[in-house]
C-alpha cells in the first residue's frame, strides 16, 4: 500500500469556499473512502491571505504575512489516501475532483 497526497487546486478568481452542493458531494466521497479503506486524512485550508511564512533558518525566525509565492493556482484542501497502486489512486483522484468540483494533483509519499 502506498499513501498519496491529493491536493485540491483552486484556479479561478474569487472565493474558493465550497458551495453547499460541493460540500455534500465531498461528504459522500469521504464516506466512501472510509468504507473502502482508502481514508487516511483530509482537510480544507484557509485562503492564502491567512497564511504566514516562517523562515527560521537564520538566528531569529522571520515571519512574512502571506504565502511565499503569489500564484494564480493554490491549494485549498487535500486528502491523504492509501491505495494499492497508481491506477487505484488515479480513480480516487478522479472521484475526488468530481466531488469537490476542483482539479486535484496526485503525488505519492516517499517510502519511509
Amino acid at each position, binding site marked *: 500500500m502506498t499513501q498519496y497526497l491529493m491536493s485540491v487546486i483552486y484556479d479561478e478568481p474569487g472565493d474558493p469556499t465550497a458551495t453547499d452542493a460541493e460540500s455534500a458531494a465531498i461528504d459522500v466521497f469521504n464516506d466512501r473512502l472510509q468504507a473502502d479503506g482508502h481514508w487516511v486524512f483530509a482537510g480544507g485550508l484557509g485562503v492564502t491571505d491567512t497564511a504566514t511564512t516562517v523562515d527560521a533558518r537564520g538566528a531569529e525566525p522571520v515571519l512574512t504575512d502571506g504565502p511565499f509565492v503569489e500564484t494564480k493556482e493554490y491549494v485549498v484542501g487535500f486528502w491523504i489516501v492509501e491505495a494499492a497502486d497508481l*491506477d487505484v489512486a488515479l480513480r480516487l483522484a478522479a472521484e475526488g475532483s468530481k466531488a469537490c468540483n476542483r482539479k486535484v494533483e496526485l503525488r505519492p509519499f516517499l517510502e519511509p
Partner: protein
Amino acid sequence: MSDVAETITRVHREEWARLVATLARRCGDLDVAEEMAAEAFAVAVERWPLDGVPPNPGGWLTTTAQRKAIDRLRREVKREEKHREALMLTDEDPRPLGAIDDDRLRLLFTCCHPALAVEARIALTLRMVGGLTVPEIASAFLVQESAMGRRITRAKEKIKVARIPYRVPDRADLPARIGGVLTVLYLIFNEGYLASGPGTGPVRADLTAEAIRLTRLVRALMPEDGEVVGLLAMMLLIEARRTARVSASGELVTLDEQDRGAWDRELIGEGHALVRERLASGQPPGRYQILAAINAVHTDARDVRDTDWSQVVALYDHLARLDPSPIVRLNRAIAVAELDGPEVALAQLDGLPLDGYHVFHAARADLLRRLGRSRESRAAYDRAIELAGNTAETAYLVRRRDQLAPDDAAGTFTGSGAD
C-alpha cells in the same frame, strides 16, 4: 557481419522485450530489469563467439540475466526487503519460457501508462519493448542523448515511486488503455514516415520498421482487437509506398505522381488481407480500421485515375462521425476535390482552425493553383513552406510554388488550357 554477430542481432530483436518483461515481473523494478537484460546481452556478445550460440538463446539470456540480478541484489543486501527480492528471483518460474506472453503486454501497458507524458511513453516503449538504445532513440527524435537519457530515467523513477502498476489493465479500463498504446505506436510510425527537422532524412525507415514490428507484437498478444489489426494494416499500406514517395533527388512525390510499379506488392497484399479480415468481422470499425480502408482504396488503384474517390469520401465521412476533428475534415476536403472539383473543396477548407499546420496551406495552395488563382496560391505555398519540417515536403512545395507564374503575370494564362 559474422554468423554469430547476426544471430545476436536477431536474438536481441526477438528476445529483448520478453527478457525485460520477465525480469521486471520477477524483480518488480524496470530499471534493474533493463540493466540486467543489457548485461546479459553484453555477456552473450563476449561468450557466444567463443562458446557457440546456446541451443536455447532466450533461456540462456534469462538465466544469465537472473544470475546477474541475484549477484547485484546480494551485493546490495542491506535491508530485509532486498533479501525478499533476492529470494523471489531464485524461485523457479513454473511457466515455460515462451508461454509468458502477457509479461510483454504488462510491460507495454506500463510503458504507455497515461500518467506519463506522451514523449516519455514513446521513449520508454522504444527502450523497454523495442530494445533500442538511448543514443538510437535520441537521434531518432533529434534530442540530445543526455536529455533523452534523463527523460527515460525520469519516467522509470515515476513508475517506481508513484507505483504505476505492472499489469494489464482491468477490463473496464482496457479499451481506453489499448487506445493509448496504439497512439504511441502510431506516433513512432509517423515520426519515421514524416521525419521532422532539417538534420534528418525525409523518411526514417528504422522507425517505421520498428513501429510495424511492435504493432505485429501487439497483434500477436491481442489478436481479438480490431483496432490493432487496423493500425497494422494502415502502417503496412503506407510502408508499401515508402520508396515511391521520395524521389532520387529527395523530393516528396505525391500519390498521383508515384511510380505505382515501385510499390511493395507483398506488403499491400498483407494489408489488404487484414482490411478484408476486419470487414468480414462485421464489427463497426474504429478510426485505425477506417484509415486502413482508405489506404486500401488508394493502393487498390493501378492508376491514380482508377481511384474510387467516392469510396474515399464515404470513408472520411464515416471517420468524421467518430472523430470530427479539423484534420479529418481537411483530408476529406482533399478527396472531395477529386470528386467535386477544387472550388467545392476550397469552400470546405475555409474556416478550419488549422493555420499552424503546413498540410492545410499546401492543400489550399494546390486548390488555388488549380483554380488559376496564382497570387493566392503562392501566398499559401509560402506559408506551407514556412511551417513544413520535412525536407522532402519542403523541396516539393518550393518546386510547386516556383512553377507558378510570377506575380505580375498572374492571371494571364487563366483558362487558356495551355498547361
